[in-house]
């Protein structure tokens, strides 16, 4: 196949992908149908090439490479993993260059224009929770990046396919057998991976920011009873700052931004073992009266 170009919006970033891999291109088209930029030539943030290196491995266990600005920061991956590799590599591009934003390591969803932020280290269940909340109708902002515009405190969406890993795949299929999952990638560096496709609404509204309203630190724990426990704001500050990719780099900017976020959000922790009950608890937050009705006095 000849090289083909596709321009996709990933939240505030416009990404041009050039590839000769038909299967990868199909997956991209399928996942980001409503995020493809079709209005002719435009300026983009990252020009990425996904291609097969010209060597012997072209025929025996073929490989695929990621290239940006003529640089190849990663070792080649097996050809069949082109899509997960692209997703990781794009995340890497953003995490290493988009310091115009404060980048929280968090799953983020929105109810209306109000956002729920769920920071967490890998294994905390933030991706699974984001996926489950999205399947129950919350707008997916991101399962990985909470992009905050520091001067306004707005949370910017960046809805990408959610990479569900290993047991999470079955957990989500058990939660919603009709979940729109992409192909299975049995052997990636993170184990077995399947992506959940963000819905049309989330993709179309990816240029609509949300207002951070709830902060919940999730923790998957076998046998835990699902309860939202209010979290002391000082502790919430410490933990949110810890879960910010570029907190140290942004210095005072991120200190002020985190401070502002903590002040305006209700902060909780959530231990959970059952996805259904966890989603119930989190959705209940959204049906409580808004901050205006609750009042300050």
């Amino acid at each position, binding site marked *: 196949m000849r090289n083909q170009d596709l321009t996709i919006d990933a939240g*505030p970033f*416009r990404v*041009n992908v050039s590839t000769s891999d038909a299967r990868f291109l199909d997956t991209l088209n399928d996942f980001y149908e409503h995020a493809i930029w079709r209005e002719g*030539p*435009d*300026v*983009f*943030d990252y*020009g990425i090439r996904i291609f097969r290196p010209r060597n012997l491995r072209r025929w025996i266990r073929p490989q695929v490479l990621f290239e*940006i*600005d*003529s*640089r190849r*920061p*990663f*070792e080649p991956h097996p050809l069949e993993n082109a899509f997960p590799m692209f997703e*990781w*590599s794009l*995340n*890497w591009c953003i*995490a290493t*260059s*988009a*310091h*115009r*934003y404060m980048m929280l*390591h968090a799953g983020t969803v929105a109810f209306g224009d109000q956002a729920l932020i769920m920071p967490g280290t*890998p294994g905390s269940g933030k991706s699974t929770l984001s996926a489950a909340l999205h399947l129950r109708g919350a707008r997916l902002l991101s399962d*990985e990046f909470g992009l905050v515009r520091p001067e306004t405190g707005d949370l910017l969406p960046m809805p990408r396919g959610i*990479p569900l890993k290993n047991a999470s795949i079955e957990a989500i299929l058990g939660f919603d057998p009709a979940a729109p999952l992409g192909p299975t990638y049995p052997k990636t560096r993170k184990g077995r991976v399947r992506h959940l496709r963000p819905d049309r609404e989330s993709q179309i509204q990816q240029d609509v920011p949300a207002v951070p309203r709830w902060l919940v630190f999730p923790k998957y724990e076998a046998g835990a009873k699902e309860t939202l426990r209010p979290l002391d704001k000082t502790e919430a500050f410490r933990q949110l700052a810890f879960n910010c*990719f*570029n907190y*140290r*780099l*942004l*210095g005072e*900017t991120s200190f002020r931004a985190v401070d502002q976020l903590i002040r305006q959000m209700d902060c909780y922790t959530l231990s959970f073992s059952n996805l259904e009950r966890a989603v119930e608890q989190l959705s209940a937050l959204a049906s409580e009266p808004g901050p205006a009705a609750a009042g300050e006095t």
Partner: protein
Amino acid sequence: MNLLNQVLRDPTIVRAWEAGDWNRFLPLARNARLLGRCLHLFEEHGLLDVVPQRLVDQFQGALAQTSYVQVQAKRELRQVQRVLDREGIALMALKGVAYLAAALPPRGWRNLSDIDLLVREADIERAEQALKQAGWGPSGEFDSYDQHYYREWMHEVPPLRHHSRETEVDMHHNLAPPVSRIRIDAEKLWQDAVMAPEEYGRQVAVLAPVDMLLHNAVHLFMNDELRGGLRDVVDFRDLFEHFAEGETNFEQHLLQRAEVLGCGRPLYYAATTARRLAGLDLSPDFIAAIQAHAPVYPAARLMNWLIEQALAPKRLGMWQTAVANQLLFIRSHWVRMPPGMLVRHLWHKTFKSKKPPTHDAEMPG
């Protein structure tokens, strides 16, 4: 010449740019670590209204990163200074960290990953020991050959890094290796050194303006096979313009000093390159005078071609760039070492050195 060079020469050309031009420009600027510099250039020329917002965001992201590493670099300098002051060892800041310390124009956008320092040759061993006792250690694995290479043949000790910090410390005792074609009398540099303004109660010495430019030239065209790339050329331009503004006869002064230190040839390369590829304005007199340091015509032609392929390729990833870099790499060794030593060095590097382990850059998620 590529779009980045053209912008450096005349930023107003972006008024006529379309999306495709910006898309060719961004990878060049990002690769050359000149995003922050370009933002300043556009600002200076009142062009921000024609720069796509998407790119302004990219520029600002790069600048945020730059100001972080600048803070780290200045902190590292203060820490080293504290240790060396205690030992009574005189210290000079070089290159990027010197521009920061002396508040010179590159400070608004200059990225840096290590700090370069100068101490006297007689002090360098003591300085290294003092730093090692205070928590610094080798920044990588250096085998006995590498140790020998740095200590005996080069003008520096193997790079150091403090165990709890990220910034690398490169400690030199001269601006060029003692075995190279260019031999600089370091004592002359110390005599003319100037003190940077005080910060946090400390002052550090930096090279005199003319020496700073000559160091940039020597570093780029003698030591480092143009590895600093276009960024170092832009430093040369920015410093040159700044110093020339503050001192009448600066150009004359620079030429004289190049004679004294024996750096005419690198100055020729640096000045003509900054003029061609980074938009430096030179007086006709200076251009005429610098020709005295040009190599013979065919060599000058070849070097021009090499420099252009390395620093101004039409786009990234061209084979000419790879060829030019290889030839410049060979040349940098040629001018740096006598032939016998070079053969030994290449022999060792080809057959004896342990290859550094390759690993993926770290990924989030």
